[in-house]
């Protein structure tokens, strides 16, 4: 009997939890934020892939282009160092955006949701009373 009671209580709790999660995940602001974040990280990644595999394509298919001299070095050396720099810059752009704008938006969203949950709970309590 005791276990049964405990079990149904647990199931009830997880149902409430699920509802909260469901609400947050379908919150339009949260969805917009996820969308924006994915748009930024996927476009930065697309740039990285393009630059890197562009470099790989030259290396694989047209090494003679990369052998062209630039000063006393070659185009290949300049481009190789260039790809390394691009990787650093893209990383910097993303971390800057995520650690300032994204983090503060998430914080605001969390605060708003906590508030909403509280008011809903209060409304429920007054209703019960």
């Amino acid at each position: 009997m005791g276990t049964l009671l405990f079990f149904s209580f647990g199931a009830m709790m997880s149902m409430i939890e699920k509802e909260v999660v469901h609400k947050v995940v379908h919150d339009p602001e949260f969805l917009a934020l996820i969308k924006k974040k994915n748009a930024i990280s996927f476009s930065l990644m697309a740039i990285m892939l393009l630059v890197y595999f562009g470099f790989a394509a030259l290396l694989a298919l047209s090494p003679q282009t990369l052998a062209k001299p630039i000063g006393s070095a070659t185009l290949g050396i300049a481009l190789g160092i260039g790809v390394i720099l691009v990787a650093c810059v893209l990383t910097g752009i993303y971390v800057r955006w995520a650690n300032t704008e994204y983090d503060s938006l998430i914080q605001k969203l969390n605060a708003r949701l906590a508030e909403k949950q509280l008011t809903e709970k209060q409304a429920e309590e007054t209703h019960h009373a």
Partner: protein
Amino acid sequence: MTTLGQPNAVSIAFFLGFILVTLGITYWAAKKTKSTSEFYAADRSVTGFQNGLALAGDFMSAASFLGIAGLVATGGYSGLIYSVGYLVGWPIVLFLVAEPLRNLGKYTFADVVAYRLKQRPIRTAAAIGTIITVVLYLIAQMVGAGQLVELMFGLSYSTALIGVGVLMILYVLFGGMLATTWVQIIKAVLLLGGATVLVLLVMNRFGWSYNNLFREVAGINPKLLSPDTTKVATSPLDVFSLMLGLMFGTAGLPHILMRFYTVPDASQARKSVFYATGFIAYFYVLTFTIGYGAAALVSAKYLAKDSFGSNMAAPLLAEILGGAPFLGFLSAVAFATILAVVAGLTLAGASALSHDLYVGVFRNGEQSEKDEVRVARIATVVLGVLAVLLGLLFKSVNVAFMVGLAFAVAASANFPALLMSVFWKKFTTGGAVASIVTGLILSVVLIVLSPTVWTDVFHLTSAPPFPLKSPAIFSMPAAFLVGIVVSLLKPEPEAAEKFESELLRTYAGIGAE
């Protein structure tokens, strides 16, 4: 003439100093290493900057310092291909896996894959993927360590291995992740500092002008400055395959992924990738300069395979420019580098054995913290002893080849399952296991059938059945494809249902450990 191989007072002093300091840190860390979170993740107390240095320390192995400098010195441009490929893995880690790892997992990357899926099959498969990657990488580092110490200090190969094994076990066993992190940080600072001084000496010799350096190199061998992929790949397709494996391998290396659990939250995790990328990029520019400096200044007869081999390009250059004391300093730094990387690898392997396999699979997730730490410590000793034995057994294996194999397995077995579990709602337990197994088997089998093993290791005269040197272009897409097909054939509604709470945790960090 070179004094390489004859230990001098400076190298011994630096070496002993490093051991004393790191053992002191281990003693300090041991007092703070009791719970699982302390043992595996330094109680999440590491800052983004510190973790950035430690990540760089994990990544800048002796193989990449001595190996890439040597590759540039003797092969020229092919060294740069590796540098670029290793580096671009870091943006991938940042954009795809760093934050989900920090927010979803606890101690291992299997935590993330198993988040929505069935614990036991996932943890078994992921632990096997982890152990194989770690052991391959460990063999490469141990063999490299033995050969280096033999060359630099004149100690015997087996003495060197036992020395590395004992010290590394002490760090991990008593100091856990906290000691390992600080050993990495110290080593990263020493390595970056030592390489910087060496580059300053090179640039001083060439009137602070890269133009002069390149002109000198071109005068000796103009081919060194032009791209040449024939050393590293058999065909244009093979070039792509190599570069694909290098890029995505980093995002599947268990000892790198594990470091994201040592910081308090996702913002610090991101920050640590930013610092790591900067340090590693700087380091590759240094090694590249050192390599060309060696090509210009070190007599070709020393770089030949029958003398010291190309791995010794950087130490030989250090001796020419800074004399025996600087050679001694750099030798000690190279040794410290190996120790630190081996400690990080052992900790990652021990976590997979205890957290995933023992607790997650055999004990069904139920085990007291105290017992879990005890098992992790036993696993550390077992892996440490195994590393020494494997190092002795594989003495003649090619180090670069083992590292390449580890990267191929990481990119094919670990990375696809990790990525799909985070981003794809319909991913299932069956799909994950099939993906890991496919990536693992395919990458290993294709390498055995490739010219790298078929011709260079087995010395078979018939044409290798698989014509490429790098398998990633087949094994990685295959792992994705098999994971997708198996997941679609047999859906797992319970897993899809949990995707919503996973989203909340991935993106907002709500409920993260």
